[in-house]
């Protein structure tokens, strides 16, 4: 029925099946939209945030999706700036995933602020000393970059491509894509970093506070690095899931292998840096403020030392080892485990840097405060997942995302 919209020579599931799934995820999406409306109309009292938890699930989700979306900028950087041309086979998907992640992040930010109609103040009345300003600048600019990168892909749809204007536009945009990608990479280095700086410039919060270089705390670099390391994991993770769902091989193993190897090296180096950072913080920074290392991980029902072990060892060292060994990369199960652990690791890191920061008391007579998100927060946080799946379904169905698909799946 809708086959005219699909690329030639590829096979897609029947329309009814497509619509059925669309409705399913659309339902989840609508649930999230309902929650958004509630929040916009009734205010943030719809959440379980409070004066201790000024930042909570949403900011975690924000940091999380941006880290996961880091695959887009890093892959783009590798392809356009470093020149790893092999990555062209996966870059489209990386861009779409990035686009989904960043648009979700912006949406969540729009719900998260108390006066959404004033959120443009962050530009208009910008305080250039604030990490959040830097985040907002780079985030929105980079989102513009992703949109620019996404447009030619849409224009490649079989029907749209027939229009000469769009065909030419797509062609021209491709030609200058390197400039956009380079700008995007530049912006991404900064906003991933400033997201890292966001908790770490808080010198009133010894758990997250880090010393650093000039105005940038060490986590500034760690966040950029970890996004570059773990972002590709998420790209690989989604690609792998897509392959499972479509029951097709979509990207050749050498591309996967290349990206996995780079990711492995990035994770390995990141984890070393992270360990050094943690060590310095635990033995120098925190004690100078009167905190012993274990103060951060005791006297509360949730945040134990396990969380650090999980983050560094299980979700850091383990995936690094798997991805660095050819055997590990070539074993699809091991690879999948590694990229999954990687994704969990970066999400956990972002969780800790948001939630544990605010949970941890600073005044001696203050108490640890725990928090459980309200359904409105959960719904709005799940919304991006549904939204992402829907975008992926539509783009996969109608756009030539995977250049190697036809080659790998010749029509019988």
């Amino acid at each position: 029925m809708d086959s005219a919209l699909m690329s030639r020579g590829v096979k897609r599931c029947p329309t009814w099946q497509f619509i059925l799934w669309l409705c399913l995820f659309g339902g989840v999406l609508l649930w999230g939209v309902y929650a958004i409306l509630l929040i916009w109309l009734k205010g943030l009292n719809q959440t379980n945030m409070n004066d201790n938890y000024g930042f909570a699930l949403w900011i975690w989700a924000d940091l999380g999706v941006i880290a996961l979306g880091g695959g887009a900028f890093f892959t783009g950087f590798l392809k356009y700036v470093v020149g790893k041309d092999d990555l062209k086979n996966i870059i489209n998907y990386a861009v779409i995933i990035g686009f989904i992640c960043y648009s979700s992040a912006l949406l969540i930010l729009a719900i998260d602020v108390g006066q959404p109609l004033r959120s443009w103040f962050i530009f208009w009345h910008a305080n250039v000393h604030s990490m959040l300003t830097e985040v907002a600048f780079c985030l929105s600019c980079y989102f513009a970059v992703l949109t620019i990168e996404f447009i030619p892909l849409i224009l490649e749809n079989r029907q749209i491509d027939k229009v000469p204007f769009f065909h030419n536009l797509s062609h021209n945009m491709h030609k200058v894509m390197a400039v956009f990608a380079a700008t995007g990479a530049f912006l991404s280095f900064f906003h991933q970093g400033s997201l890292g700086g966001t908790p770490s410039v808080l010198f009133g919060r010894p758990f997250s506070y880090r010393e650093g270089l000039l105005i940038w705390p060490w986590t500034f670099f760690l966040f950029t690095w970890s996004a570059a390391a773990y972002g590709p994991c998420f790209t690989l993770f989604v690609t792998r899931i897509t392959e499972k769902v479509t029951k097709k091989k979509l990207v050749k193993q050498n591309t996967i292998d290349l990206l996995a190897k780079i990711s492995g090296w990035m994770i390995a180096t990141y984890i070393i840096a992270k360990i050094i950072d943690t060590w310095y913080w635990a033995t120098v920074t925190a004690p100078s403020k009167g905190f012993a290392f274990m103060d951060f991980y005791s006297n509360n029902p949730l945040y134990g030392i396990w969380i650090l072990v999980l983050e560094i060892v299980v979700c850091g060292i383990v995936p690094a080892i798997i991805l660095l060994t050819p055997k590990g990369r070539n074993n699809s199960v091991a690879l999948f485990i590694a990229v999954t652990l990687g994704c969990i690791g970066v999400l956990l890191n972002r969780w800790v840097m948001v939630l544990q920061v605010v949970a941890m008391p600073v005044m001696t007579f203050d108490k640890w405060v725990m928090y459980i998100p309200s359904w409105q927060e959960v719904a709005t946080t799940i919304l991006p997942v549904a939204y992402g799946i829907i975008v992926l379904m539509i783009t996969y169905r109608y756009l030539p995302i995977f250049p190697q698909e036809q080659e790998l799946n010749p029509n019988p």
Partner: protein
Amino acid sequence: MKKEVKNEKAKKYGMVIDLDKCTGCGACMVACMSENNVPFKEDESNKLDSIAWMRVYKLTNGKPFPEADICYLPRPCMHCEGHNGHAPCVSVCPATATDYNHETGIVSQIYTRCFGCRYCMVACPYHARYFNWWDPVWPEGMEKYLNPDVSPRMRGVVEKCSFCFHRYQTAMNKAYVEGRRKLEEDEYQTSCAQACPADAITFGDLNDPAHAVHQIAKPDLKHGGRSSNPNAFRLLERLGTNPKVYYLSSREWVRRAGDNYLKKDKTVKKLH
């Protein structure tokens, strides 16, 4: 002509709270609420969602009966100076809705500028910043007591203690019509300091040796405003927030509760 109009010496308004005198009666909290149009809800027992610019904390020494001891600690906004005005909250606000005034040392909060990102609340280790989770609603007729000098806040913005800056403004107005620029110590007092029935709160210009706060707190400006009074301490001084609220206590455990210390650390008076 330009020399004629010399800038007066910058003021640094601050507070000294004598915890030996503080009875924990809560008058400062209510004096603040009624002066500053702080709203209230039917249930205010969830203290994580209850706006109290001035909050009185109850400290315990953790010892069993009969060695147990308690102490009350009123906590307004500390109006941190940080390093050269870089209060923890001021530098993080993305929209410049809060700033540090070098002329008075007061950290402002502009409600119409704030868009409610709450980064400042995360930055403040004192929980001195409060978010308007709800629309402020006064029962019918009660809006009559609202103070026109302070604008009521809308839902979705952050608010905090301003050291009753509007009182500074009105005092300055009076001074202006009398042809003065200088305020007497008692012309500008915060609502809490004025109300405190135990006279535990002293407010004034820390830079002015004639003011009581200066004489009690004896701030050592070479060492980040650290007090030279052996009974005085500031909350979380070691973080480098450089707050302008000093506390006095004759009890060691109370002074130690004012900051974080490793077991081996002494309740130090020196920053480094």
